[in-house]
Every structure is written in structure tokens, then in C-alpha cells.
């Protein structure tokens, strides 16, 4: 699983972002200033650094330069809304630039995009007996191969990538079917039912009035 380094000086935001990322299965370490971040980077080079810009002492831009020298992709997460800051951040080679406040879902999507671009994204998932391999589009449960339609596989892939975090029906619909199907959330429900029938109902939870969540705690159990 990808290992991320979060540098954020505000304790509340640090706590919440860390929780969001670790729930999906990322290995997250958090630092509250540049010095601590550098020490953590020495211990183990992260696959992605998520940096606040306004840090006490050395700021995020300067820290990002060191990160990029070591080929660590950088995502800025900041309250600095000025276009000039965004341009500066992206021009110096950051992968992305996100403004606070943000939707956790968006953060996850952008983190995933960066990891996919840098080929660090996880493509092989094991949840107990259930194994999902994205490149070969194969799903097995125990010894038996589970036959899924293309749509069902895409739906499952989207869910396992965000295991433990709920996805709304709208997000699933636009992610799998595309925007042309907007509004037809019943389609999602129908396919989720079929998917549950094929892989086992216990893997997909219904989140009341919202959508669905894939339960994939740890690598061992469902």
C-alpha cells in the first residue's frame, strides 16, 4: 500500500486528513513542521507528500523543492487561495494543488490520480478470500473465479479503491456509467444487488440515504 507523508501544522486538520487517508488503506505519517517532515523522509521516502504551505518556520514551497529533488510527488493542500500561489505551486512541479476547505472525496480522488500517474497506485486487493486484480480485471473468491460483466467490474473496482469510505450513488453512477446517466440512481442499486449476489453481500454495505461502502478492513478479513 502506498505510503504518504502529510505535513500540516493545524492539529485538527492533521487528525482528520490522516483519518480519511488511513481509512482507505494508505499508510500515512504526519508531521507538523518542515523539520519533522525531513526527518520522516530520511526514515522512509514517501510515495506522495501532502503539504500545507503556511507552516511555522520553513514554508511548504521550500520543503516541496527538497521533496521534488528526491522525486517525491507533491500535492499542496492549503488555505492560500491566491492564483499566484497556485501557479507558483504547480509551476515548481507540484502534481496538484487543493484549497481548504475541501471534500474528503476530492482529496482521495486526487491522491489516487497522482499515485496512478506515478504508478504507485495499488492495483491488487486482497480481502480475505476475495481477490481483486485490476490490471487483469480478474476477481476470485477462494479458488473460484467470479464472472462479472464489464459494468459490474468497474463498479467493484471503484468501490475497492475507496474501501471503508462511502461513495454516493451519484458518484458511482457518473464514475462507472458516465454523466449521460445522471439521475438514474436505481441502475446503481440494481447492479449493486447483482454484485452482492456474485461476491457475497457482506462486502458491500448500504449507507442510509447516501450510497454504498466497501468493507475491506485490513488485508486479512472481509
Amino acid at each position: 500500500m502506498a505510503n504518504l507523508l502529510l505535513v500540516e501544522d493545524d492539529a485538527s486538520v492533521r487528525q482528520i486528513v490522516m483519518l480519511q487517508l488511513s481509512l482507505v488503506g494508505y499508510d500515512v505519517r504526519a508531521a507538523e513542521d518542515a523539520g519533522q517532515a525531513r526527518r520522516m523522509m530520511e526514515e522512509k521516502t514517501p510515495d506522495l507528500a501532502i503539504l500545507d504551505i503556511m507552516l511555522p518556520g520553513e514554508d511548504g514551497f521550500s520543503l516541496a523543492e527538497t521533496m521534488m529533488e528526491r522525486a517525491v510527488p507533491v500535492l499542496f493542500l492549503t488555505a492560500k487561495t491566491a492564483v499566484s500561489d497556485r501557479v507558483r505551486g504547480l509551476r515548481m512541479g507540484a502534481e496538484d494543488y487543493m484549497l481548504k476547505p475541501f471534500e474528503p472525496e476530492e482529496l482521495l480522488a486526487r491522491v489516487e490520480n497522482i499515485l496512478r500517474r506515478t504508478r504507485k497506485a495499488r492495483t491488487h486487493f486482497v480481502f480475505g478470500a476475495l481477490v481483486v486484480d485490476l490490471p487483469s480485471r480478474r476477481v476470485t473468491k477462494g479458488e473460484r473465479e467470479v464472472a462479472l460483466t464489464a459494468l459490474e467490474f468497474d463498479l467493484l473496482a471503484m468501490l475497492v479503491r475507496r474501501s471503508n469510505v462511502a461513495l454516493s450513488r451519484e458518484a458511482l453512477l457518473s464514475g462507472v456509467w458516465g454523466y449521460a446517466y445522471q439521475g438514474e440512481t436505481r441502475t446503481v442499486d440494481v447492479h449493486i444487488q447483482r454484485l452482492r449476489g456474485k461476491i457475497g453481500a457482506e462486502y458491500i454495505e448500504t449507507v442510509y440515504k447516501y450510497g454504498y461502502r466497501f468493507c475491506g478492513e485490513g488485508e486479512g478479513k472481509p
Partner: protein
Amino acid sequence: MRKRIALCMVALVLTLLGPGMALVVSRSFALTMERERARALGEEAAIARALTLETAEGNVGRSTASTLQTRYGSNELTIYLLQNGETITGEALPTVQKLPELLNTETRATLLDGVSERLLIAHALDGEITLLTALDVSPVYALRRELLRGAAALGLIGLALAGALAIWISGVLTRPLSQLADAAAKLADGDYAAPLPAAKNDEMNALIRAFSRMSAAIDERETALRTQAEERQALIDALAHEMRTPLTAILGGARLLQQSRLSGSQQSELLDTMAREASRLSTMDERLLLLTRLDHEAPAFAPFDSQAMAREALSVFDGVRMEGDDAVFVGERELTILLLRNLVVNAQRAGGKEAVRVTLHPDGFDVTDYGCGMTKEQIARAFEPFYKADKARTRSAGGAGLGLPLCRKIARLHHGELHMESEIGRGTRVCYRFDTSL
């Protein structure tokens, strides 16, 4: 303005130069004429004497006249002899209008005739003979005409020169005015640095000074307004930025609660964080409201007891020492309590082994802590909205970054000031002094 000045000058030159030259010409004419008259009278007297001798011998006749003419006369001087109003020689008398009156004289009379330009002298002699001498004075008249023509030419040249001079002078006089008009136009466009003319005369200088005072005053006022607007904008920007962090935590926390499977302890931790961030927002809001209220409302000052006020302010804290004598403060008691509490909160945040100390003075108080201290740079920025010398410590203590700006506003409301001195590792003292003359 320029035209009027030029016209006035030309008119002035005309009224002075015209009569002056006319006077000179007529005076010189009169003098020359007087000399001619004296010469003519002298000559005529000689002729008359000679004639008297002739008449005494009683042989006055036609020949006498021609003899006189040849002996005394010339081209200019013509001599006539008259007897009973007729010339003896029978020649015609010069046509002069007032000749009959002249000839009527009993003795000697002169007449200057401007038409024929002759000076006539009639002299009644014995034997009813009258001697009439006519002197041609046309050269004198010609001289006068010459002079008048010259004067006219001179006048015209003078007038032209005066006109040119007037245009130039009026230009010089009004140049500062048109430059001032340019400067005013530039001022209207917002250029306060437009050069102002320098004038030599006092009235114009007074106008220019007044104008430059006015433009400086406008510039100053506009700068003040702009600074105020910039400060307000900076506060709004800082506020927007400052609100984003708690909002991120609250929004992120809510989404996590909504979307994720969390353990009970994770949930309660999240809720704690969210509640803390929400209360930080609410403190921020409260302080901002108070800051704006203090900007707009006139304070209600009243005397109050300083020790009782400090006791009330410190009742919410533990372990704060108070010292100093009682005094009567004049000001807003509630705001003074708020000020003292804010300073004590900051002092306690600085940490330190010894208790925070509040010292009362007749004109204010000091709040001293023995904590971490602040650098000069931190002190300089301490009163900026949302500036936090130690972000982590302030945040964890629920600070909003508006305490000191609010304190300073309260101090200034009392025409006072906050003064901060600090030493790293030794502690910080904040002194509040208000104006006791209020």
C-alpha cells in the same frame, strides 16, 4: 483675462501718450510762433520808423510802398500801405477773414491767420496811413504738421510696442494661472505630484500655496481612506483564510462521520475536534463583532474602582497574582475587564513556572508572565489580526488570533496604548496605560 490685461495696457498707453505728444507739439509751435512774432514786430518797427520819416516829409505815395518793399520786404515779408482802407498802390489785400477788424485798430495790432498761414501786423500811422505787414509763417505751420505726423508715427509704433509688451506681460502674469489649471486637472485625475508653478508676485504665490495645501490635504485624506480600506480588505482576506482551517476540519469531520465506519473512540475524538473548531469560529465571530462595534459606537465612560474591576476580571483564572494600590479608573468597565482577561489568557499561554502577575497603576496595569518570551519580530507583528507567534500553542488553547488587536482597540478607545516588552526565555510584560485627563 489675458486679453483684458492687454487691452487695459494699450488703452493706458493711448491716454497717456496721445495728449502728451499733442501738448509737446502745441508748445513747440507756440514758442516758434512767438519768436516769429517778435522778429516780425522788430522788423515792422524799423519799417514804421522809416515810414514815419517819409510821412513827416509828406511825400507818401505809390513809390513809397515799392521802395519800402524793395528795401525791407522779402518773399516772406510783404508790405502794404493803406489809406482810407484802400491800398495806395491799388494792389489787392490778402484775403484774411478778420482783416477789417485788424485794420480798425487805432494803434498797432497783430493777427495770426491760420488759413493763409500769415502773421499780419497793422500799424496806424499819422496822416491816416496804415502800415500792414504780412509775414509768411507757413514754415512754422509746416514744422507743426511735420511734428504732428512724426508724433502720430511715433504713437503708432509705441502703441504696437505697448500692445506686444502687454501681451507678453499678461502672459507672464497669467502663466501661473494656466499652470495651476493644468495642475488642478491632473489632480482631478488623481495625480497629486503634478508640478506647481513658481510665481514672483505675492498674490499668485498665496493662491499657489493655498492650492498646494489643498492638494496635500486631499492626498492625505485619500491616502488615509485607502489605507483604511486596505486594512479592512487585509482583515477580510485574513479572516477568509483563517476560517478555512476550522471549516476544513468541520467539513472533513462531518463527511468522515457520514461516510466511514469508525470506532466509538474515533467518533468521539472527531466530534471533540469538530466542536473545538466550531467554538474557535464562534470566538472569532464574537471578537470581530466587538471590533466592528467599537469602530462605530461611542464609548460610555464612567469612573470605577480599579481593584474591584481587576478582582472581577481575574475571578475566572487560577493562580494569578495581583498587586498595586487601588485607584479610580475612568473608562468602560466591561471593556477594561475584557482587555485584562485577554492579556492574562495570553500570558498564561506563554507558560512559565511562576504565576502570571497583574500590577495595578493609577493609570493602567501591567500583565507579566515568566514564560517563553517573544522575539522583536514577533512583538512587532503581535497586534496584526490573526498573527500567532506560536501557532500550535495558540490553536490548541482555542485562540482566534484576534485577542491582541481587540486589546489594542480597547486601549486606543481610552486614548491609551499597549506596550509590550519581552525577553526570550524570561517572559513578557504587557503594559496598558490610558489617558487620565479624560
